């Protein structure tokens, strides 16, 4: 068939297809009763066939270009992924996130060790030696840290605060903590060195602060404040580090895949971990801003902290066990 009769024979279908396409690109309603959107897939496939024919028969490049453009515009509408928000989001937190975490239990354990062990050692050491903290922070930072918890209660976290100060701190925790979580993940792409440094450094800094303040006898101000939100915050930072290490693992030990293939596969899981960790950090920010600084007695705050640890551990180890893909765990 020559080009002109080919065009003439199919012009009507192409016109219909164009109308459906502009309807889809606009509001997504049926353009007219006799041309429902349900006809789109059939017309799209026919147009693909016409495009292939035009190319095989070497019709004029302009015609081929025009058909290609029509195919290209239709393709994303047919293969668009379904938009649904609530159900997948709930399913994600109820099962997808902890399942993915357990599938990468070894990396998570490594990240947690890199974060908590230096913190623990530094904390013990700083509790013994009041000078050691200066190896990590300068004098001004240490002075500021001490003033926040020295019990004078003028500025800062130990004191009673007004509601709008609480909200300001909430904004600060969201920006700072979730930002750190995201950076800990992204830095993993630098063959893991970035995540490693951030995990160890944050572990050391947190441990040093805790040990130093306890050594000075400010523990009664410090521990009740941090106990309630730390289960979520510390765990989430470790999980972000694990996500970063997952990227590094793909680059360093891709196994039987190409490095790029391994990176893609691991990034899919890593971003699930980061998403879950970000939500945990959000929860931690809520607790830290609106509860930790509040006036509840220390015993209650310790109790909330203890419950928090139990809840986090139970959630991460048990949630979503019988869902899809649960059997894949290692």
């Amino acid at each position, binding site marked *: 068939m020559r080009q002109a*009769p080919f065009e003439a024979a199919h012009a009507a279908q192409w016109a219909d297809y164009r109308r459906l396409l502009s309807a889809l690109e606009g509001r997504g309603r049926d353009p007219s009763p006799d041309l429902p959107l349900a006809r789109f897939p059939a017309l799209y496939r026919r147009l693909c066939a016409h495009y292939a024919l035009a190319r095989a028969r070497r019709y*004029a490049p302009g015609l081929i270009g025009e058909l290609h453009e029509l195919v290209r515009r239709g393709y*994303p509408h047919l293969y668009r992924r379904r938009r649904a928000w609530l159900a997948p989001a709930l399913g994600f937190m109820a099962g997808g996130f902890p399942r993915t975490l357990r599938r990468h239990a070894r990396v998570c354990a490594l990240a947690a060790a890199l974060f908590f062990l230096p913190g623990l050692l530094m904390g013990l050491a700083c509790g013994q030696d009041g000078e050691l903290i200066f190896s990590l922070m300068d004098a001004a930072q240490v002075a500021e840290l001490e003033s926040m918890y020295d019990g004078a209660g003028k500025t800062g976290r130990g004191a009673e605060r007004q509601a709008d100060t609480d909200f*300001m701190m909430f904004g600060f925790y969201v920006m700072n903590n979730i930002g750190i979580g995201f950076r800990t993940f992204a830095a993993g792409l630098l063959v893991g060195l970035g995540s490693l440094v951030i995990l160890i450094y944050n572990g050391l800094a947190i441990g040093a602060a805790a040990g130093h303040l306890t050594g000075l006898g400010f523990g009664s101000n410090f521990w009740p404040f941090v106990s309630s939100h730390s289960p979520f915050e510390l765990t989430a930072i470790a999980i972000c580090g694990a996500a970063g290490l997952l990227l590094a693992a793909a680059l360093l030990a891709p196994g039987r895949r190409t490095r790029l293939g391994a990176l*893609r596969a691991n990034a899919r899981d890593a971003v699930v971990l980061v998403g879950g960790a970000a939500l945990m950090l959000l929860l931690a920010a809520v607790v830290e801003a609106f509860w930790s600084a509040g006036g509840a007695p220390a015993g209650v705050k310790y109790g909330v902290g203890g419950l928090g640890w139990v809840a986090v551990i139970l959630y991460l180890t048990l949630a979503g066990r019988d869902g899809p893909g649960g059997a894949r765990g290692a």
Partner: protein
Amino acid sequence: MLAAPLDTLRLHETPEGVDLGLGVAGPAPRALALVADGAIRLAIYLVLSPLLALSGFGLGLNLIALFLLEWLYPVAFEVLTGATPGKRMLGLLVVHDDGTPVALPASLIRNLLRVVDFLPLFYGVGLVCTLVDRDFRRLGDLAAGTLVIHAQRRPAPGRAAAERPTAGAAPRQPPPGLALATQQSILAYRERAPRLSAARRSELAETLLAHLPAPAAGPAVTRGTPAVEQVQGYADWLAQGRAGD
């Protein structure tokens, strides 16, 4: 199918068995889009800055806005509309490497890893990576499996003029046994001719004729307007047959 073109066109075969050409966007338009997005983010931030007057509460809102603008602005726009406003201004679109619109996981990956592409400063790593990669992908794109493409290829011009048979030239039969590629060149000539100057039109027609097998009648070399009419005649014949049936 055709060999991969020496071009920034990335071919993706759809389930229908046809090749979809995705025109990947290079570093220059993407950098401009970044600048535009930066300006838009700054503008949003400045619009929100009166919040600071609300002391503590306003400062909190401000910090949250800063966080959202820094991390989630690109993700939200890419997932909802396919591209950030800056990219849209430059006609760019973010898609999966199979051409489908980008979804949340891939968008999150490519935008969180932006931090690494930004290193050591102003997208040094990202620039080197886009220049090295055949599809101009930065590290975030590589990990997420995404492409930044030109949303709209320039529409093929001159189609309307080629619909009609060329005035003044009757369809004439081309020499037999023309290769398909040659036939396509003649058809392409018919489409492009209306947009060319008269001199260029003759020159191209002469070049085309020189590559055709010599007609049996004799080695008469046609030049100028007759050459144009001859090629146009061949093209009309190829497109619609002798009588336009």
